[in-house]
């Protein structure tokens, strides 16, 4: 289950004076079973890109292939060179109409937006989690089974099923909201800043959960500001800046690219900078083993003999 994006452009308010180019010539591949970080400052286009992954936004131009569900603007509308396009609205409508069976796409790609707990709405936990799978036409028993499994995975036990989600703690609400997405059994799980606003222990629990979902065979795309998370959990990192991909590499390579970092506002995680300093000072640190504080401590122990 992979996503291939080619020459993707997205312009907001196309044709209006407020027109704004949000994404420019995006080319990238999210491999099957990937764990990829999307990095970029506010306004870099991360959220715009994410919304393309399940058809919430339609590209202004370009192509997205989500496991052979093809969104290809050139097939939908051929803009002749030199010809002035006047009716943007009609153009947009046309693009949307061409997206057939969007439900099948939404089933493949589950998106957990920022502060997903704001999207809880049913009066019990179990109903809220069941809402998604129900809409994908599963039988009642299947729905219930999926929902229970998802809740179990996020660590919410059966005593919570009949409780109202609004009276849970912040961390619990978020886990319920995530269960609602997992219950749809997406092949690709996209999470936009899932740990923002959680305290240190809540953050760790959630990331361990995401790791587990990944191990069970789901591809993960994680938009985050937190470089410690990128280093510890992600296999690849895509850096967006003002609507363009400016770097795509492993976290290890990204955090060692001093030339690139100098010109960006990214800062490697503390643990990695410290490991680099140790290495510069002559300690034989193997950077690829450094993921967090405890693995750095082990590397130091090994290097000092």
């Amino acid at each position: 289950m992979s996503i291939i994006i080619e020459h993707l452009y997205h312009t907001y308010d196309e044709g209006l004076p407020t027109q704004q180019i949000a994404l420019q010539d995006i080319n990238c591949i999210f491999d099957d079973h990937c764990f990829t970080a999307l990095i970029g400052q506010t306004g870099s286009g991360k959220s715009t890109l994410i919304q393309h992954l399940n058809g919430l936004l339609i590209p202004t131009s370009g192509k997205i292939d989500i496991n052979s569900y093809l969104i290809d603007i050139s097939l939908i509308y051929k803009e002749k060179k030199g010809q002035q396009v006047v009716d943007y609205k009609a153009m947009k409508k046309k693009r949307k109409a061409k997206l057939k069976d969007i439900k099948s796409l939404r089933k493949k790609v589950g998106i957990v937006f920022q502060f997903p707990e704001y999207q809880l709405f049913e009066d019990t936990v179990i109903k809220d989690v069941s809402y998604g799978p129900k809409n994908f036409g599963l039988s009642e028993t299947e729905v219930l089974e999926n929902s229970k499994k998802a809740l179990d995975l996020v660590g919410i036990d059966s005593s919570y099923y009949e409780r109202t989600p609004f009276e849970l703690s912040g961390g619990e609400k978020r886990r319920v909201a995530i269960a609602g997405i997992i219950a749809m059994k997406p092949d690709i799980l996209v999470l936009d800043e899932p740990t923002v606003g959680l305290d240190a222990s809540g953050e760790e629990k959630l990331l361990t959960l995401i790791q587990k979902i990944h191990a069970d065979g789901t591809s993960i795309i994680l938009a985050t500001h937190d470089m410690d998370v990128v280093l510890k959990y992600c296999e690849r990192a895509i850096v967006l800046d003002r609507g363009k991909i400016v770097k795509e590499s492993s976290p290890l390579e990204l955090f060692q690219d001093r030339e690139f970092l100098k010109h960006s506002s990214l800062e490697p995680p503390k643990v990695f900078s410290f490991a680099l300093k140790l290495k510069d000072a002559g300690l034989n640190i193997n950077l690829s083993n450094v993921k967090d504080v405890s693995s750095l401590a082990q590397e130091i122990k090994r290097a000092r003999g």
Partner: protein
Amino acid sequence: MKNKAKLSELLKKENNIPKDSAVYLKDLTFSYEKNHPILKKINLDIKKGQVVAFIGHNGSGKSTLAKLIDGILIQDSGDIAIFQTIMNDNNALLLREHIGLVFQNPDSQFIGATVEDDIAFGLENQNMSQVEMQKRVIECAELVGMENYLKSEPSNLSGGQKQRVAIAGAIARKPEILILDEAGAMLDPKGKIAIRNIIKKEKELNPDLTIILITHELEEAYDADTVVVLSSGQILMVDTPEKVFANDELLKNIGLDIPFAHKLRKSLISLDIDVPEFNNEEELLNFLCR
């Protein structure tokens, strides 16, 4: 003559407050809503020339405390004394002359139409000549590295640049007490480091300056002589950064994470590597590379 007598009465120093005290808080209590005190009987003596960091999670009362010290808010009960003078309705404005304050949001603290106007704003009622004023503005702009932007409009600057201008404006009046209320919180990591370095530089130029840092980023608190841990409106601990950070259970309980270097030291000790206590990351680095 009469005026002078009045002034000295307004700024009367209390003898029972220590002479070397810059900010003295006694039983300070404050609430926004009745029966929901944000600060409960705070007692603290901040000495002249000290760098003090207040740490605590959101809602612990840190920012409220800063506003009380600057006389922006008025306490329900208890006393605040600035350089031995107890603050009251009549002298709050006079006492505020001693204090420079920088807030978290760079967008909410601009007055001038250009960077130089903004830095000069606080100097305008200080009876200063034009030449002197200009000199001071340039001096401060240089300190924060904004000397090439004097004619720029503040709204066109980046967040980090705005915050640097705000600091320049706060130190232009040469306050004896500088309060930074999460001054780096909205900046990216590089912006944060730049702000920390500016503060360090200013402190070197002006060793008598008393600095109050309000932060929930513990790395910042490393720069302080004393760390005050606030939780639910009460002081849990007042000690050196080393002692406070060694107490990681307490910090964890109130939702704060200990700084990286302390975490690493703990981790190394658990692997039977004997690491002595240290004062900063450099010392740890030097020790490990020995």
